[in-house]
């Protein structure tokens, strides 16, 4: 909680200093079955229909996150591209809670975080500066209650706060966090914390190498304190040490049931 409060203050001071926001790439066309609605006897429109790419934002082909769009989220896996925990105590290495459908920004799947929940996306470094972009939709409408940090495996590389482009969400409820950060020399992690009072949807996280001519770094990068970054790194390291886990009890039960039952029935 102390951390959350710290970052609220930090990000509030940030103002609209977002620099080099990553260009938004759509997730595919969308449209609605809605009419203008409401006047002249037009029916009340109950829902819109959209076409999503079920593979997510595949336009970001050079995404340095394993599964920035959550479309490949596993069901039972112990080693997936994101980890989640109910708090910054990092007691758990769970899967991010799944949200699906139109509440997501792109594709079909995204992550849903209750208050204080944190997630960590695993990625790689590049020889270039990194364009960092992630979208979050806070139920309480406060972009600055969402904390986004880009950090690295190495202690010697600073963790950088990724600011929201504005304090309030856009009309569609989404907050965009974006920043150009210096090149990294070790594995890259994207940390998101829901410091708000309502649920938070997280989706379409993209880290791409900066393109030629884009390597102009913003001044005044906000460095996350080591007291914040160190436990996150430790969590990430614990998550990524080489291992083959025996299936947990639930998975063993499930697989045994599947084995002994005709799968087609």
């Amino acid at each position, binding site marked *: 909680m102390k951390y959350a409060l710290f970052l609220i203050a930090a990000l509030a001071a940030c103002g609209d200093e977002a620099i080099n926001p990553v260009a938004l790439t759509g997730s595919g066309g969308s449209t609605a*079955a809605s009419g203008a609605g409401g006047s002249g006897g037009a029916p009340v429109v*109950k829902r819109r229909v959209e076409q999503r790419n079920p593979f997510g934002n595949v336009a970001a082909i050079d995404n340095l996150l394993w599964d920035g769009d959550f479309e490949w989220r596993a069901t039972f896996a112990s080693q997936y591209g994101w980890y989640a925990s109910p708090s910054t105590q990092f007691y758990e290495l769970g899967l991010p809670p799944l949200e699906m459908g139109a509440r997501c920004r792109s594709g079909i799947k995204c992550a849903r975080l209750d208050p204080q929940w944190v997630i960590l996306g695993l990625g790689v470094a590049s020889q270039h500066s990194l364009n960092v972009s992630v979208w979050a939709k806070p139920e309480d409408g406060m972009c600055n209650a969402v904390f986004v940090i880009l950090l690295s*495996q190495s202690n010697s590389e600073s963790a950088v706060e990724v600011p929201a482009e504005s304090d309030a969400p856009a009309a569609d409820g989404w907050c965009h966090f974006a920043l150009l950060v210096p090149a990294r020399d070790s594995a890259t992690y994207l940390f998101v914390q829901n410091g708000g009072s309502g649920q938070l949807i997280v989706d379409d996280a993209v880290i791409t190498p900066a393109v030629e001519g884009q390597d102009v770094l913003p001044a005044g990068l906000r460095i996350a304190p080591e007291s914040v970054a160190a436990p996150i790194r430790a969590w990430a390291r614990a998550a990524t040490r080489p291992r083959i886990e025996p299936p947990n009890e639930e998975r063993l039960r499930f697989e045994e049931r599947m084995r002994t039952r005709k799968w087609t029935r």
Partner: protein
Amino acid sequence: MLRVSVTLALVLVTPQALAGSFDEAGDYLPDPTAIATVDFGSDFDPEEDRYVPADLDPVCEPVSFQVVEGTDALDREHYLHVQTDALAGCAERFLVTVPPGKSSYRATLWVRHGSVDAQLTVVYPEESGLETLAAKMGPTGRTTSDGWIELASNELPVDGDLADAVYLRVYDLDSVGSDIDTLEIIPAGSYWEAQSCAGVTDPVCGEAGICVHNRCRLGRLYVPPLPGDDIKNDVVDAMQSLIQNFFGGRKTRLSDLPKALDVLESIRGASDPWTFWNGWARSFRLLHDWHTEVGGPIHGIERRARLNACFFEGDADLSQHAWPSHPQYKDVLVSHAGVEGTQGLAAGDRLVAVDGKHPIAWALSLNTVNWDHWQANDDGVYAELTERMRSLILEFATSYSVIHCHAATLNCDPAPTTYKVADLPSGTGNQVRCDNRPFYHLGPGLDPSANHNVGFQFYRGPVIEATPEEAIYALVWDTLYGGGEPSGFVNQNLKDAFADFKANARGVILDHRAGSGGTLDGAETATELVRPPQLVAVFMSPIPFAAFDGPATLAEGVDLFQAFKTPYNTMTVGSTQYDPAMPVAVLIHRDGSASDFFPFGVKGYSDKVKIFGPAPTAGAFSTYFQFRYWGGLSWRMASGDTISFDGRALIGNGVAPDIVVLQKQSDLLAGKDTIHEAALAWLRTELKP
């Protein structure tokens, strides 16, 4: 507005995935061509329309759905809330009525919240000779602002005259339940009838089919819909980028990754779902990595027969006259057999050919179709393929040839006997575990000789062949899952064993012949008996830099070792409490991951430690990540490498035995475990004073 919706949908959705549409108010209009529509409204009878298989587990009998009345239904009336206990294997099934005659149908279904596994299934009476078929469902990409997602299946052939039932099966995969609405069955495609086939090379199954377990299988039923032409290239780009950026270490990236990328390139032109998804799966198989695999429903087709015996690589010294060894591949012997369903196989028999090829060459040739492919990273290691040989034969072979040998006379037949897989009697009972241990040596009741299921257990004690004065002890175990707990089950078992050995033994056999890996702390602990502490490797795993090919020279490797040497990503072996006088023989056979690290950590340190086995370990020196798509598809991919203190990139370079020992056929017949015997003989020359 309806027209707008449909027009734009055409841009992105696979054409066959289109179904119903929405009116101006956003209400759903079922596809007028549908032959059955289930909207869970007044026509739905929860009792009559629920399908309960005759062999349903009683635990799954309670109804786990409810009809919900609500304006948020697609048609503003009703939908179903399903909350099955998927972990208990429970699903719900809902019948649909199809017209008589042979036809083919695609199903669409809308789901909301939660996560489901859905499929359209047709079952036939046994006397029809037709097998149950099911088509898995995946998302079309159509979603609604109130949370509904459209799923669709590929075309399922149905004989409406013979079918016992056609139904939707739904597993709810999370704890909160899922809503489903408006199941539609739409005529699509043409009827296809499965027929018997004689192995994967039998052309009778045609381009759309694949022969598995002597039955043609329609490939598209086991995979999600084909990505539409508008997104297919982008999807392939993303798949290529993913493996290019994240996969592997030096050896696998340089040697194997290009082949996988080429296969992915080839599926851009795929015009049917099976070609696309099987090509995608094949690209993973070509990555040639112990940790890397793709799973899918095709992998789960029930076997028809049993081959209740285990194969491993050895030296067929008694049957060279009948069939000389292959110049490249080792001989394949029966290690041990179960009790029933062995098809006449017994320890010491030799598998000389499958479909006319050396068994390993044949198994390698299956990588175009075998979703259960499992191969070591090290190019010359085939223990994994050999261990799975019996399953591969049952799934894909037409025939196999065995030279039978006889324990009573200690000789072998002069020529092989060839068996047709299709002629094997039906039988789906359990099969004995394969652990590359033809015999155990701890005495009756002290080992799992009845079923060879070492699994996650530890067995230790004096070996029965040694005298009390020799005091040679053994530890038999296959897991290194320490889980980061120094006093956890695995680490404590290892520590207890080593304390016992230091107190009581004059020589030790560490029998790890089916080492299934675990965690690094387990591998580190396993080295504590034999050497003092030393930092021996750093993990650049998962891969730290996009598309990093690893060190090109040993000098570069040493630089990386120094640069990445931190307390959290290193392997430190040994213990200050090690026993320098204790001779230790480590037995390996099919070992990977943490079970690579363990022998790596003991090799070459001292003349008091020797590794015995037929071939190197897998060379799987990395970690991995796991992912899942719809339609039952999942995949696991290795990432990164390990750099040794002397600069070597280890992946793909298994730990070679110090003493290469192949199990002899003659020993198998005589009841001797050649590798164990070799270890025992060496220990006797080195016994601790």
